[in-house]
């Protein structure tokens, strides 16, 4: 079995067990307000980190790809205009694709 399959199945198992844990563990275990606040903030920190890393790096090197950054800027603009999720995605991918097609970036 390839490494990617193992990662896929381990992620699936981990995510399922987390969902099941809340339904089965006593509330006080995860009920501590600071623990709760931490779990609320974890996705914010991790997703912001992912945005930053994926927008500006390739492996361990920091790389500024104008098309990718322009695509992300289009996503920000769409979010500021309160566009729905799919519109945000299409605006981002479309901007990057158009710039590459035109050879501008």
């Amino acid at each position, binding site marked *: 079995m390839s490494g990617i399959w193992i990662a896929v199945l381990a*992620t699936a198992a981990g995510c399922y067990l987390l969902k099941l844990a*809340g339904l089965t563990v006593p509330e006080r275990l995860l009920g501590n307000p600071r623990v709760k606040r931490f779990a609320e903030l974890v996705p914010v920190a991790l997703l912001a980190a*992912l945005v930053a890393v994926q927008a500006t790096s390739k492996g361990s*090197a920091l790389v500024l790809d104008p098309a990718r950054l322009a695509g992300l800027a289009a996503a920000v603009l769409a979010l500021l205009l309160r566009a729905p999720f799919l519109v945000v995605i299409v605006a981002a991918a479309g901007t990057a694709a158009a710039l590459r097609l035109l050879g501008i970036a």
Partner: protein
Amino acid sequence: MRDGILLGLAVGVSGLAFGAAAVGAGLSAWQACALSLLAYTGASQFALAGAIAGGGSLLAGTAGAIMLGSRNALYSLRLADLLQVHGLRRFATAQGVTDESAAIALAQPDHAAARTGFRATFASLYLTWNAATLIGAVGAGRLGSPQSFGLDVIGPAAFLALIWPRLQAGRTERAVAAGGAAIALAATPLLPAGAPVILAAFAALAGALARRPSSDGRSA
């Protein structure tokens, strides 16, 4: 119940973006579909695909994806009391816990309505998300070079859209996001790919300890 079905359809279509991003990242269409069927939690799925695309360590990518699923444990903690499911049903209910089904269930006036809303959202979103993943994965595979279609931007754009409402929620959220991004960028040249993102969790830890936790328990 109608709200749940509509929400499931609307959000589930985003599975197209996941399927396309996953195949662009180097997963097979089968692997993309397995993630949607089994992991069934958007942010974690995008995170794993992103880690694989970046060529990072699979172990770090998996750990990051699972950490992103931790909020589902908090939703199900709230839902345990609200839905009152017991015995074997818990195992099926657990898989349905997502941002969307929790939001719908929490908005209902009583146990019965919460159960109905939860099940309607689960059914609608699960079917739509998985069908859309398949279509996105197969479609993207036929397009050719993922970069020329801007598929490499889908991941970051999706993450940004996912945290956007949280960034509006308060100053702590924005500080944690900025801190997480800064930690990850500073660590990128020093550590194997994937690890910097996990380090960003320290920004969440700092945020949780710095301020007195809010008591209203908002978690959407």
